[in-house]
């Protein structure tokens, strides 16, 4: 049996399910944000920060952040295992990707909740 320690959920099945669930969440979030921007052409700072001050929007946004982190990890892990055949290079790139995802996630949370 093939096993992997750097994949997101250590299981192809859980990675596959997570990839699809996170894709649906990201699709819903994207549609919502695009629709919001289209329906509010004269958007100002107060309306925008008012939107993100609401609890449901913060939950929705945080859900989207976590989803994109998981989605990117699973997707890029797949790309690295396909194309990077040198173990040293592959593990190095995977570590960089996971670190970058972590930084962006914490940064996003700070922007969302820090204001």
């Amino acid at each position, binding site marked *: 049996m093939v096993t992997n320690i750097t994949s997101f959920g250590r299981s*192809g*099945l859980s990675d596959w399910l997570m990839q699809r669930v996170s894709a649906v969440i990201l699709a819903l979030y994207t549609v919502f944000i695009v629709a919001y921007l289209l329906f509010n052409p004269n958007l100002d700072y107060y309306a925008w920060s008012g939107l993100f001050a609401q609890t449901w929007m913060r939950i929705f946004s945080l859900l989207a952040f976590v989803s994109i982190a998981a989605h990117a990890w699973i997707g890029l892990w797949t790309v690295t295992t*396909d194309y990077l055949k040198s173990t040293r290079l592959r593990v190095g790139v995977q570590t960089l990707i996971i670190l970058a995802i972590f930084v962006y996630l914490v940064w996003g949370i700070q922007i969302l909740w820090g204001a």
Partner: protein
Amino acid sequence: MSNLQVSVYRYNPETDSAPYMQEFQVDTKGRDLMVLDVLHLMKEQDSALAFRRSCREGVCGSDGMNMNGKNGLACITPLSDVVKGNKLTLRPLPGLPVIRDMVVDMGLFYKQYERIQPYLQNDTPAPAIERLQSPEERDKLDGLYECILCACCSTSCPSFWWNPDKFVGPAGLLQSYRFLADSRDTATRERLTSLEDPFSVFRCRGIMNCVAVCPKGLNPTRAIGKIREMLLADAT
């Protein structure tokens, strides 16, 4: 002029430092020959040309090769299906090590086939006559058992090119599902457990190259989807 211009991949590791393409002029006498017939006409010109063939009617699966960029069986592929601009380029199945000319080492392909345990496993006592199936249960095996293991599908699959040691490949997975779907097999749970890692099944990205090239018209992508459904049903 009925001369067909054929470009063939040549490589003899004992004498050649690198593979090269050799040009042939083949007189087809205006007939719509099969690609295998053209290979035989070329072998008359150069008897050293090596390729596999056996039944010459699409049953044995020996002469899988890449014809003008698409995998298929040379014996059942008419020139009119593949030739463009009177030119035909023949290469061995992509992604497998070349032994000589069009002959590839199928070791990895068979290893993945072996890994899915392509035989019926049943731990219940054998009945006096035979294990019966209803016509409905038997119907589930249609579109699965017909595979001749020619490797056209697996060698057209990028996921198999990049990870032939870990990804089972479309041919192996079609056969895996053939036994998962068989009402007489009782090793379903063990079979599923051996497939749930990130490579064996889940490296399939669903690009359906396998479906596009299968000379028997089978659909490995659908079988892979069914395996995923069974894994999900078993684990959630």
